[in-house]
């Protein structure tokens, strides 16, 4: 069995050197790797992901262990980021809280992308009535103020799951995902409408490929680039929404640590113990920024035409010259 596998694997390097026509994705990856800001963003995301994955190994105390004799301690060797009102170790809570923020960010986008791809593809298939119906529906959802809808959904369904942290988490990412999909649906439909005009799609249609085959084999893969970019930008928005929910009191039930909850808890003591609220607040901002940089990089990498072109004219020096010429000309006159 093992031998079989290895024979299958060995030809790979040969294929790689032979592949003169570099694939779109490999090209994009190379451009992404050359983008320093995007790489810094990716590094921070990976760091947070590692902290979230290994939280039980790298935290120093159980995140919910209270020690009322040690409440509101400042940062020290024992408690790197100090302790909160109940004497819980802030560093341990922060590391464990990364799990919530990160999973909300990513899982919401999975919900949003699945819904958005399905609706966008269906709308772009070329059935007039279906397209109209779906797009009008998308417009309506789009008109709903985002966070208001999320607050409404979460406030309704978190009662139904009564206090279970995992289920509340599910409620939160479904709610945010339900608000985020129209963006992706509109994008996919637009992409598909323009792709359908291109020769390779018309060729496939002329050869008698079914609508479904054209959609899945020819259209879908070509829309993925922009979808990935949009989803990456959706992640910080979702992280923000979760933190905002926690901040106004609609987050996970206590004592589960999430970055939003830590901010909300720390906010009560902001005037006396600012360190408690600053650490999670800055962590949220940093993670959101990391995903934004990564999204910027991905956009430039996946669609070089959209990337900011090199300047054709350097505006300012040229301006100075022109002004000088003008003055001289005036004097002469």
């Amino acid at each position: 069995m093992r031998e079989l596998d290895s024979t299958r694997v060995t030809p790979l390097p040969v294929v790689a050197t032979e592949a003169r026509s570099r694939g779109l994705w490999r090209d994009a990856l190379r451009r992404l790797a050359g983008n320093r800001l995007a790489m810094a963003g990716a590094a921070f995301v990976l760091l947070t992901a590692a902290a979230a994955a290994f939280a039980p190994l790298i935290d120093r105390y159980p995140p919910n262990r209270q020690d009322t004799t040690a409440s509101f301690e400042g940062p020290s060797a024992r408690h790197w980021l100090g302790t909160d009102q109940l004497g819980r170790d802030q560093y341990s809570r922060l590391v464990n809280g990364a799990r919530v923020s990160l999973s909300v960010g990513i899982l919401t986008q999975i919900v949003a992308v699945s819904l958005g791809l399905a609706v966008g593809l269906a709308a772009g298939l070329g059935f007039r009535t279906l397209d109209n119906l779906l797009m009008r529906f998308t417009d309506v959802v789009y008109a709903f103020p985002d966070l208001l809808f999320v607050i409404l959904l979460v406030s309704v369904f978190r009662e139904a799951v009564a206090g279970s942290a995992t289920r509340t988490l599910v409620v939160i990412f479904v709610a945010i995902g339900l608000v985020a999909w129209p963006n992706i649906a509109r994008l996919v439909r637009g992409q598909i409408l323009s792709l359908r005009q291109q020769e390779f799609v018309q060729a496939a249609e002329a050869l008698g490929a079914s609508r479904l085959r054209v959609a899945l084999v020819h259209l879908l893969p070509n829309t993925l680039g922009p979808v990935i970019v949009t989803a990456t930008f959706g992640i910080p928005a979702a992280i923000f929404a979760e933190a905002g929910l926690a901040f106004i009191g609609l987050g996970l039930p206590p004592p589960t640590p999430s970055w939003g909850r830590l901010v909300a808890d720390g906010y009560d003591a902001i005037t006396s113990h600012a360190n408690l609220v600053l650490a999670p607040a800055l962590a949220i901002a940093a993670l959101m920024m990391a995903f934004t940089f990564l999204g910027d990089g991905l956009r430039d990498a996946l669609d070089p035409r959209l990337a900011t072109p090199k300047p054709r004219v350097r505006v300012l020096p040229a301006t100075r010259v022109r002004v000088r010429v003008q003055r001289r000309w005036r004097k002469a006159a």
Partner: protein
Amino acid sequence: MTAYLIRRLLWLVPVLLFVAAITFVLMHSVPGGPWDRDKPLPPAAVEQLNRKYGLERPLWEQFGRYLLGLLQGDLGVSYRHSDRPVTEVIGGGIKVSATLGGLAMLVAAAVGVPLGIVAALRRNRALDYLSVSLATLGASTPNFVLGIVLIVIFASTFHLLPTIGWGSWKQAIMPVLALSALPTAFLARITRASTLDVLQQDYVRTAWAKGLSVRAVVLRHVARNALIPVLTLAGPLAAALVTGSFIIESQFAIPGVGRAFVTAIFGRDYGVIMGVTLFYALVVATANLAVDLAYAAADPRIRYR
């Protein structure tokens, strides 16, 4: 144009109807009701209250009655504020929320647009990088985090500003700054991109070539044209300000519509929840419509049919 306007206005009706229906069903699908207190009311009292407000009737009938009232401009009453009409609750908050949002918008326009234009003029130089990084920072810092940082600096460390509340100009500074960060970043980013685009147009080269001063070229030829795409942002910006108001108003204890909504959510105050949802949906939809109209007014090439 008139036909287009009428069609768009008519389109608002199904949108608002849909929003109302969804909100109504969601609100009433939760167990419990507006009479849940820490100390439970006697069942007889709950029954009587339900009868008084028609809450014991079938859902579709309640919805029908609500819509009928809506047509007459009646949004019902708040169950928590001893029968205060919802229109009054929202009306009281609008002034505050509009002031807060308007000031934030003003700051965003006054800072974001010049920042974007200057960044484009000094492309790939220190000033450009500074403005781009400021914009990125503003776009990816949650408004309440910015609020926290502001409070820590100006209220707890230097004691220059009061932490919370609303009424004096000193109390307005921090919430307005926190709320304006995202719109400012948005505006700077889009203005920069569209200015760069305009700078490469032939008519700008012509303007330079005929010897106009820097100021004339930038203000009259570049800025005017670069600002058209920026107009499209008014819709998303209105939405961002609405969204921000929930959190910022709660954070700084500002008595606006956003905080009224959050309070209503926790108190199961059906009337206020419905009212605010419809009101904000109308605000966002109107902003989007206004954008499309302004777009046509600013750019004569755009025609709506």
